[in-house]
Every structure is written in C-alpha cells, then in structure tokens.
C-alpha cells in the first residue's frame, strides 16, 4: 500500500508486528519527523535517549533499533539509502520557532501541530509528544558541542525501510519548516509504503 504524504501534511498508520514501512524521499532533502508507539499501550513510546544509549551513538541507519522508553524494541531499520538520520533535533514548533528565528514565524506551519492533530485521532495529547526522529535530516555535533541542522545528504528517490518489532502506531509530520535547510527551505511530498511481513 503506497500513500503520498503531501508537503507539510501529517500521516499515521498502525503497522503490525513483522510488517514494514518504507519512507521514500521523493524530491530529496525532506525532513520526515517521526514518532512511534506500542499500538496496544501508547505509554510505551519511542525514546531518543534509550535509542542513543542502546546503540552507542546519535545517528540512525541500517541496523539501528528504535527503542522505547522501557528499553524495548519498537522498530528496526532494515534498509537505508542515506546513511544517517537525526535523533537529537526534535520537532519544530510554533513556540520554539519564535526562539530560533523570531516571532514573525509564529503563523507558519510546524511539526508539533501536525503531531497534535494526527495524534488526537488515537487519543494522544501533548504529554504524549517526546523527542522524535527526523529521517533525512542532517544534524552534526562539533567537538565543542555546537550542533545545528545543516544541508541534507539525501537525494530524490532515496528510501529507508523499517520493520515493526511489535504492533506499532506511527505518527509522521512531513516537516513544513522553511527557515532551515532540513528540507532545502522548500517542503516536498514523501511516500509511505506499507509492506507485508519482512
């Protein structure tokens, strides 16, 4: 099953254990903000820190296991054309945008709003939003700790595939940010493909 998620839009799905989700960066350099929950107990959800500590590093690629806040596997990256994805930067929000760029950005779209709207369909609220994955987003950390979202390393048509290690609920915000290079200042559509058992 293929679905094109338009620029700036949200998307969600339940992926059964063993099923796969392929995310294709149709036009290149498009940040895909991503949260994942245990479909049967959404208090168990993606944990950036558990994922980072479990794999001993901050970048995600083939073989990375997305860990829950109870340190249990939720999904595993089984294929990746890009090589690294972000665990640190979290989502853009209207509120944090006022700090990062200025109050003139308040009326622009932001990922947290997408997550809130899409999550509400499943009874999820603001307390259920935690630091998320940014597929295709490039956030290096310098030796002095300086970090920032810089030009992406993705390209049109590149894809990654995740296998569900249990029944999971996935929330996606196809990032609408236009103030940093996470999507080349030009949000574009991405494609979601749900596959059968891997």
């Amino acid at each position: 099953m293929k679905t094109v998620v338009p620029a700036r839009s949200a998307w969600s799905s339940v992926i059964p254990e063993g099923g796969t989700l392929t995310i294709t960066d149709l036009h290149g350099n498009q940040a895909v903000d991503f949260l994942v929950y245990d479909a049967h107990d959404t208090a168990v959800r993606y944990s950036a820190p558990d994922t980072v500590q479990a794999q001993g590093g901050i970048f995600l690629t083939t073989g990375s296991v997305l860990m829950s806040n109870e340190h249990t596997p939720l999904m595993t990256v089984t294929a990746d054309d890009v090589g690294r994805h972000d665990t640190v930067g979290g989502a853009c929000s209207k509120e944090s945008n006022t700090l990062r760029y200025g109050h003139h950005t308040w009326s622009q779209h932001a990922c947290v709003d997408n997550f809130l709207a899409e999550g509400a369909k499943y009874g999820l609220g603001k307390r259920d939003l935690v630091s998320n994955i940014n597929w295709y987003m490039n956030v290096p950390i310098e030796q002095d700790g300086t970090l920032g979202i810089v030009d992406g390393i993705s390209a049109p048509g590149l894809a990654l595939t995740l296998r569900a290690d249990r029944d999971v609920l996935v929330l996606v915000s196809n990032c609408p940010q236009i103030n940093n290079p996470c999507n080349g200042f030009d949000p574009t559509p991405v494609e979601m493909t749900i596959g059968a058992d891997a």
Partner: protein
Amino acid sequence: MATETTYGARDHARAQDGTRAEAMPVVPAGDWPDPPAGVGPLVWAETVAGGNYTHRVLARGTELRLTDLRGDACAHLLLYAEGRPWERLNVADTVKVQWNAYLGEDRLLLSDQGRVLASVVADTSGRHDTLCGTSTLARNTERYGDGTPQSPSPAGRELFKLAAAKNGLDPRDLPPSLSFFQGVRIREDGTLDFTGSAGPGASVTLRTEQDVTVLIANVPHPADPRPDYVSTPLEVLAWRAEPTRPGDPLWDATPEGRRAFLNTAEFLASRGLA
C-alpha cells in the same frame, strides 16, 4: 526498649527523634549545618542517597545547587511548570535552540513552549549529558540483575515514575531527562564517549525562572561502563534568590535566549505573576 504494648511501641518510635543519617532531608532546611556563604535562608537541604530520588516544588527565583559529594553521583533531572505539567523540559529544544548539545554555565533549560524553566548559573563540573536519558527497569535488570526501586540497583525511570506519581503525574508525563555530573561527548562519527565525572565536590547551580516541579533521580548514568552499580550521595541545597531580569548579562547573552526570557516574562505578566 519494650515494644509489646502500644505505649512501648510509641516510646520506641519517638526515641528516634533527632537521629541523623547520611542521606536525609534536614527539616527545617535552616538547620543545615554548613550553609553556603552569602545566600539567603535555605528552603531545601537534603542529601539524596545513591539509587534514590527526591522531588520538590520551587518558586520562581530559587537557586538550586546540586553537589556530587564523592564523585559518583549522577543527578537525572526533569522540570515541569508547576501546576501545568503539559509545559515541561524539552531536551531537544534545549540543545537545538541554543545550538549546543552540552550543558554548562549560562545555558537555559527550555520548556516546550518557547520559555525558560531554569537557567544554569554556575557549574564546576562540566560533565553533563542531554542525550542518553536515564536508566530503565529492563536495562538495569539486564546489566545489574534488577532495576526495581527496592532493589540494590534501582532504575532512574522507575524512580521518576514514583516521584511523578507523588505530583499527580504518570509515565506519559515523563519525557527524556537530562543528567548532571556524568558526562558524554560525541565523537565526529556520532558515537558516544563516556567521560565519567569530574570527581568529588563538583557542583552545578540552577536558577528557576518559573515556578517549577523538580524531579531528581540519583542513579548511575546509563552509559557508565562499570559492571557494578556505582552511585554515591548527591547534596541538594536551595535558597530564595532572584530570577533573571532584563539587564542581567544572561538575559541578552544570545538572541534565542533573549526571546525565551521575553516569552517567559510576557507569560508571567499576562497571568499577573510578575
């Protein structure tokens, strides 16, 4: 002392009054034997045992000093806007907005609402972490054999659940935490380099910029490679002080921070709080 009667049991219990333990809150805090010089009356004075936790509500403009007494404390910390727990520490915003993954003096601890919850006003450690969070029941059971709160190797998340529950919060209210006194550095390839602590006596002082609920778990850092569960006492002292105000160098230190302070000030003003 005989405890076979109610009177005896009562006498036995009351005879414990005044007992001092190494790890305990001192109440009133003003009875703390060695207060820091030059600060106002203490409002919180406690030594938190290794593998234990504490929690408190602090008014805006309180300074909170954490001290790693013996070199193997690790203070895992969460902050919530008091009474409004849907506004809480956002570690991702804290590092992204300030363009730096490492904590230290003059860094702000940002909420997810574009506001400041607390600022770091002093730091003699420099070994802190925003990336690895705290330990879990599953991880500690795998690593140490147990991670339950009553075990010899309690997990930070299990202790946070208890501290949260005592403030009307549940596990859904526990976002990624940060930790002080046990550091991690990121190598160029993105892998973690655990630095350990700066040694005994290091301290970090936070200043609350809103009324906040503070949850602290003192447990080993999850990236600590030592096979044993090593966790030593954490000293917690707090006193009334002043929040950061316009004109303070920290207020204008960065454009992002200035906007965070402005957002906070306007929020407080609109509620009639400042």
